[in-house]
């Protein structure tokens, strides 16, 4: 699932994420910097050991939300390019679940834009993370919103 337009690229995929592919989406002779963020899956939450994570999505809405984020962050920071890719399905511990690449004429705009794109994505994209603890601990639908502990997923 891909949406792209003039230097803007958003994608949801069940495959492994590829940093070089993300970089190539934003590479430009007009850019003096490419900033990459890779979010990886952690092996614990609040001391509980996480076996693996599973991401699901309302795909058409998430694509449209991510494209809005890409467009607004790009225009606000004068980017040359931006790419937001999120992985879906089961993601083993330690692997990338999200890659954000931005290119900009100068690095300061790149750093800021990358951070903002990530925060906006975490707040708004219609994507959900299930943390599987294994054994009797079960699984929890995590929520990014502060103060929210998530909802246990009954078996």
């Amino acid at each position, binding site marked *: 699932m891909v949406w792209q337009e003039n230097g803007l690229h958003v994608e949801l995929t069940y495959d492994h994420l590829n940093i070089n592919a993300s970089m190539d989406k934003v590479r430009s002779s007009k850019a003096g910097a490419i900033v990459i963020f890779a*979010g990886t899956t952690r092996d614990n939450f609040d001391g509980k050991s996480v076996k693996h994570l599973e*991401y*699901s*999505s*309302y*795909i*058409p*809405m*998430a694509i*449209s939300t991510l494209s809005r984020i890409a467009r607004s962050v790009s225009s606000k920071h004068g980017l040359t390019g931006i790419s937001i890719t*999120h992985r879906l399905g089961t993601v083993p511990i330690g692997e990338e*679940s*999200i890659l954000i690449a931005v290119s900009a004429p100068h690095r300061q705009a790149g750093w800021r834009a990358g951070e903002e794109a*990530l925060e906006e*994505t*975490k*707040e*708004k*994209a*219609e*994507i*959900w*993370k*299930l943390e599987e603890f294994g054994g009797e601990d079960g699984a929890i*639908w*995590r*929520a*990014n*919103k502060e103060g*929210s502990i*998530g*909802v246990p*997923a*009954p078996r």
Partner: protein
Amino acid sequence: MTAPCPPSGHFTLLYFAAAYSYTRRHSEYFEAPMKATELFATLESRYPGIKTSVLDSCALTVNREYVNVEENSLSTEKICDTVSDIVVIHAGDEVAIIPPVSSG
């Protein structure tokens, strides 16, 4: 996920994340028309406990646009103050329960 096509006179409701875990379904058909503010009460009667466990923290979309869900949608007398606030779900609509998101 591609939304399935509902039978005539019905709309499709999509369940994600915690809503999927609670109902054990990815989607379900309901008779249209229905006021958006009545949907959560309808779900509570079909899936007792879902309101406090899941729906209270959820948003609602109709045809991929967010709509307002009144706080007290369980009490029929107190739905909306103004008629224009009431979103009506029509046959063929794609409606979705949106739990708090957690990408990244």
